[in-house]
């Protein structure tokens, strides 16, 4: 259940300074606590968002949808050429459904109106505004790479959605560059999680594990804008199973095709867009092995629809349960993952880069 929140205290100022904003946040916090001793400051992470002001409403909606994964302190930098001065609105929000005697976390939001002239020096504005000693995550969904670069020194994590980059090759290059400088949480990678879990589960029984070395054909279907998610999925398998990869070629049907080399045999690779898919991420995965097994997973109602054929041509079909997380859920998962470390993303990305 997503906890509802209400605004408890507000402060606003024009042509202000980070020091004044930080002081105002402390005062707001004291003011809220004087209303209820149940209110306690949340201290999990800072989220710094750099957004085009014209699209800030859309980003605010996405952030509202993350529910319990909301950052402790969110600093939104709304960028517009119209802004000449640093204007700010600071708010404290508390859950609406607090129980007597149960602590209710207070979450702080600062919306800063910034102009292009502020972006290169953004670190000097943001640094005083983030809570010390909790991780800081930067998310810049509308580009502004100069601003993002300016904040890498104070952020521990960068949140990206690599499907935002139209060209997968560009996405891979930018991710590699970022990854060398900080820890990256990629929403495109998180959209592949249920698929990775299910393929891992399929081959988990001891008698099936040897078949991982016998994979002969892999088809990945994806949203037309999510080729990078497919590439990351193939990169993941390649990194886990020691496949040798080469660049994929686009065939007449627009699919990316190629081969992976393994110790036993080649694996036919095919990444194709599924134009019926309405949400970002993967639409389906199909795996065949030289031992005669075939598994196909597709998005379906209530989870993934699985179809399986064994070496004896015995067909089976079932649903692997799991609720769709939706885009707000994916963003929330991205924020949660900022507190964790996934050692498999980097190798998957590096191997995916060999495909483009």
């Amino acid at each position, binding site marked *: 259940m997503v906890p509802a929140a209400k605004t408890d205290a507000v402060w606003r100022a024009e042509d202000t300074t980070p020091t004044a904003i930080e002081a105002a946040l402390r005062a707001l916090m004291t003011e809220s606590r004087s209303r209820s001793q149940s209110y*306690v400051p949340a201290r999990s992470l800072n989220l710094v968002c750099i957004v085009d002001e014209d699209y800030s409403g859309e980003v605010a909606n996405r952030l509202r949808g993350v529910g319990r994964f909301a950052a402790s302190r969110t600093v939104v930098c709304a960028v517009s050429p119209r802004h000449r001065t640093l204007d700010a609105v600071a708010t404290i929000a508390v859950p609406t459904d607090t129980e007597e005697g149960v*602590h209710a976390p207070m979450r702080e939001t600062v919306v800063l109106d910034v102009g292009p002239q502020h972006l290169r020096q953004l670190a000097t504005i943001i640094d005083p505004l983030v809570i010390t000693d909790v991780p800081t995550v930067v998310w810049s969904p509308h580009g502004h790479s100069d601003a993002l670069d300016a904040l890498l020194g104070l952020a521990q994590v960068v949140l990206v959605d690599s499907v935002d980059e139209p060209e997968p090759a560009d996405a891979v290059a930018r991710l590699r560059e970022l990854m060398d400088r900080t820890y990256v949480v990629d929403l495109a990678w998180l959209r592949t999680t249920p698929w990775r879990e299910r393929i891992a589960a399929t081959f988990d029984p001891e008698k099936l594990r040897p078949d991982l070395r016998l994979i002969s054909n892999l088809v990945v279907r994806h949203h037309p804008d999510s080729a990078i998610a497919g590439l990351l999925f193939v990169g993941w398998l390649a990194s886990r199973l020691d496949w040798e990869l080469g660049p994929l070629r686009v065939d007449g049907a627009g699919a990316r095709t190629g081969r992976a080399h393994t110790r036993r045999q080649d694996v036919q690779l095919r990444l194709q867009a599924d134009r019926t898919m309405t949400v970002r991420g993967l639409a389906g995965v199909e795996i065949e092995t030289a031992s005669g097994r075939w598994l196909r997973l597709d998005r379906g109602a209530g989870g993934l629809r699985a179809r399986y054929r064994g070496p004896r041509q015995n067909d089976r079909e*079932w649903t692997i349960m799991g609720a769709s997380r939706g885009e707000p859920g994916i963003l929330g998962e991205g924020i949660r993952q900022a507190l964790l470390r996934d050692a498999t993303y980097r190798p998957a990305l590096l191997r995916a880069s060999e495909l483009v």
Partner: protein
Amino acid sequence: MTEPLPNPLTEGLERLPVHPTALVIFGGTGDLARRKLLPALYNLAADGALPERFHLIGVSRSELPDEEFRTQAAAAVKEFSRREADPKVLDALLAEARYISGSFDDEGMYPRLSEALDGFDAASGQQLNRAFYLSTAPEFFPVIVEALGRHDLTAHDGAEVRVIIEKPFGTTLAEAQELNRTVLSVLDESQVFRIDHYLGKETVQNMLAFRFANGMFEPLWNRNYIRNVQITASEDIGIGSRAGYYDHAGALRDLMQNHMMQLLTLLCMEPPVDFSADEIRNEKVKVLHAIQPPEPDRTIRAQYAPGVVAGREVPGYLGENGVPEDSNTETFAAVRLTVQNWRWAGVPFYLRTGKRLSRKVTEIAVTLRPVPHQAFNQEGSVGVQPNQLIFTVQPNEGVTLKLGAKIPGTRMRVRGVNMEFLYGTTFLSQSPEAYEKLIMDAMRGDATLFTRNDEVEAQWRIMDPVVQRWEAAPGPLPQYEAGTAGPAGIEQLLAGDDKWRAI
């Protein structure tokens, strides 16, 4: 035997694969199933955490078609799930759920159950693991386990069979021993998962992380620095509609003998060699072996009398529906224990639990010895207090460290302040319900958070003499006013200058 090939695809995954499983809930239409187990299964399904092939069978006495069981189960999930149910996931979870009706001692019921399980195996083309969850009245535990044995349901070629047993595991030492004998006559200990749902709570598991992942506490974690430990499980509610169960159990059996003793073992155990189920349980059992049953002057029991809770007048225990007017069942129990080993000798451990107390709280408070020399002037302040470390299990899951700090002002005055770590404000994740964690662990075969046979018996060995003594003693019991901190005279349990923490 050669080691199986590792699965290279599982590295980095938060949810590790679980072997395809058929879960049978005995008592599938009962209160626990409706309130806890079915909602837990739904939440696991929604998270994509259940095995990719998962089948559910409910077993109960009522005559129901499969469809009606599915309808009832869906209604239970909608009512009790911690989050709103996604109809598509709920449909997928229950689409193939089966229901077998029959009393648990009906020999004809088990072949039907076996047939349903075989049907799931055939449909999935593999031998599914089988997990039998005994969510029934405790008198049926041995009945069901023995019947599973007679009907060859305790082993399954190429797959695992596990039995999950709810509490209470016996109501006396003799009963617990007898139940263990019965269970282990048909099952191996590795197949048995005795539930103590406290162990599924985050804060309880965090005690292990807190003690063994931080270097700063272990040097203090002994008789030289710790003055006393208080474990409190207080409830502001009465017995509600549970008179039938509660009047036979009482506070000591309901919470102290099992949950609170588990908390004590986690607090006192030595660092295990590793965090495998048996290494942890070995260390916990050693703690229990170091505890002697408390002498009569180190135990107190009482019943709640009418009073006022949260501004509302409430009846006393003897006035509750279904409670005999001459009942001698305690609704409050407190004991003082000592752990007689090198680390803990001489440190008093105070355990108290009760219903209709002033507040709901479950916590472990570790009070350190005071500083050896009071250098500060105490005038005008409460002065320097001993440090306390408090693990709160509910309602505000977290850890508090009480420190002395200077009061702002021109004078050097000191009072206690709190440094708090709260789960609700520090992590973004919502803690799963204890049952979600425990069901998954049982399906995975990880017994770390379940009670082993020797642990159960060792717990009973400490508390059984108290139970026997109390049952033999005539009533009426001392009373305490509902809404208070318990009966007068509980200070008698305390050693020296020790004081009870406020509830």
